[in-house]
């Protein structure tokens, strides 16, 4: 029985029904709770106007700080400026999608970047391909059917990095039109027809990789490598079983913790040197041989006490 916390931090999800984003939020929430702060989560449900309304609602509720993962960082700027003008500290996630540790553009005081905008991830993917396909091969990229900056940035970087290695042929890109497993499956089913000689499929996230596996399994043709991304919980068993060959854990819980810690430092008015920057959360690779070492996100959030 604790008294209601006096200081509340808002958290604006682009969409809450996404295990990766939810893990970021939960990581932040628990960290904040530990420090005695309240948490006010709002869900834009992929609607840019709803995210503006959410930020306006946070201003109304007089939160002290807000953590925003913008759907559209350019379009959200006016709303965030209003928050700043109302004396609210604005901390962001993936606000800028350039691979840089420079401090983010105003009005964001600080940000956390996940692995999408980091060139290191694209490089790691090509390196992984070198390990599993040393003789080279034909690579298919599966992207998202509607634009999300960080994802597009990663897709381009991957294409560039792959082009540097002449062993590999970039066959092309197909898109998951509905951002779910079914969409991934349909995209890959069709790609298998168009490109009969795929050696590896690189997917923008694990549900898509799962869809790719379903498509390949239905063809009974399992000699295609599937490279996932983001390490969504539903992928873990698939990696154990070798259905998906590997995936990168984006460490969302750690991102959430970093966001919360940044927020706390800012609210406690710690010296600027401690927080005025971009924190890049590293991604860690797992495949069937290392998956046992993987600590599920929920376990990690439960550890925050």
């Amino acid at each position, binding site marked *: 029985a604790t008294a209601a916390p006096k200081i509340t931090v808002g958290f604006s*999800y682009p969409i*809450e*029904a996404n295990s990766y984003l939810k893990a970021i939020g939960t990581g932040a929430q628990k960290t904040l709770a530990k420090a005695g702060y309240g948490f*006010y*989560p*709002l*869900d834009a*449900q*992929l*609607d*840019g*106007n*709803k995210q*503006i*309304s*959410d930020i*306006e*609602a946070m*201003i*109304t*509720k*007089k939160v002290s700080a807000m953590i925003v993962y913008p*759907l*559209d*960082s*350019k*379009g*959200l*700027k*006016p709303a965030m400026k209003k928050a700043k003008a109302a004396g609210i500290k604005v901390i962001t996630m993936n606000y800028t999608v350039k691979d840089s540790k420079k401090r983010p553009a105003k009005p964001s005081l600080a940000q956390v970047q996940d692995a999408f905008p980091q060139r290191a991830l694209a490089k790691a993917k090509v390196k992984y391909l070198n390990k599993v396909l040393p003789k080279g091969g034909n690579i298919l990229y599966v992207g998202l059917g*509607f*634009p999300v*900056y960080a994802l*597009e940035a990663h897709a381009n970087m991957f294409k560039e990095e792959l082009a540097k290695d002449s062993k590999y042929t970039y066959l092309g890109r197909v898109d998951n039109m509905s951002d779910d497993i079914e969409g991934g499956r349909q995209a890959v089913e069709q790609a298998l027809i168009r490109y009969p000689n795929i050696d590896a499929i690189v997917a923008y996230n694990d549900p898509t990789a799962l869809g790719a596996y379903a498509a390949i399994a239905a063809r009974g043709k399992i000699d295609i490598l599937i490279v996932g991304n983001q390490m969504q919980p539903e992928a873990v068993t698939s990696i154990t079983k070798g259905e998906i060959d590997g995936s990168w854990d984006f460490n969302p819980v750690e991102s959430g913790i970093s966001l919360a810690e940044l927020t706390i430092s800012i609210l406690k008015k710690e010296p600027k040197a401690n927080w005025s920057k971009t924190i890049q959360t590293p991604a860690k690779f797992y495949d069937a041989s290392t998956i046992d070492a993987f600590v599920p996100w929920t376990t990690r959030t439960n550890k925050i006490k």
Partner: protein
Amino acid sequence: MKFKLPSLSTMPPWIGVLVLEIILLIVMAITQPVFFSGSNLSNIIRSSAIPIVLGIGMTYTILTAGIDLSVGSVLAFSGILLSGMVELMPRYVAVVVTIALVTLIVGGINGTLIGRLGLNSFVITLGTLGIFRGISYLVTNGTTRSIDTGPLINKIGDGNIGPVPGPMIVVIILAGISIYVLRSTYFGRDVYAVGGNEFAAKLAGIYTGRVKMNAYMISAFCAGIAGIMQVGRLSAASPTAGVGLELTVVAGVLLGGTRLSGGVGSIWGTVIGLLFLQTVSNSLTIQGVSSYWQQVVTGVLLGAAVLFDRIRLELSGRAKSKEKK
């Protein structure tokens, strides 16, 4: 002086939604005093302005017994067109040119196919929904373009004009004109007539094809304006703006008592219906209801709103005699 309340049965159909809205406001006033702060009320108004503007256009098309599902993507298209135009000409000219182009292109396509050729409005506007969303993505390569909006566009979409929110002024002007047009002009009467009985309207000398065409032009015009407002609100033109908005807008229009089969409805109803939907969303957010629960509660309130209207009719005893239609 005496004031007589209209009988239950002669009340407009949006009265149920209005009552629900008032109940909601009372509940909020008691539980969340911050809800009634000036800034929150202004937030509700600002964020409902775009759906209302789209809803005004939608009301015309539904009154003619059609539907315009393309409004959400046309809103995005309009913003992107504007982002190109502002680089070529002064901003106020760009605004006018954008709205004009959107009206002509989108209204022209929808209007010709549905009004002139009599094609199914649901399928055609679902088609143009895809077309203009796709074009918006293609032109921008999926990225949002920042726009230096300048005071004009900002005021339309977000800022204040004097003490009043700019979007509210836009809504008042558009709704005011539409209320007048639908009630007191020949064109407005033709809209109701075409939706009410197309054969009779044609026999009476109404160019039914042209009336429908104009309804889709007006809907495109409203979507064009909404697109500008959206740019003002975002200081940017986003190709993903307005995704899925069409269903919300149609729901608001229907909540307001406009019949999907045409011929019956009003702008008042549309404004109240969409304001209600926005109030629900704002209230649940302020209450701190989780987003999953929000979807459930919003669904329940949609049902409650139409049930309310039904109960009113049932009480007035008119429901039974209305079974005919």
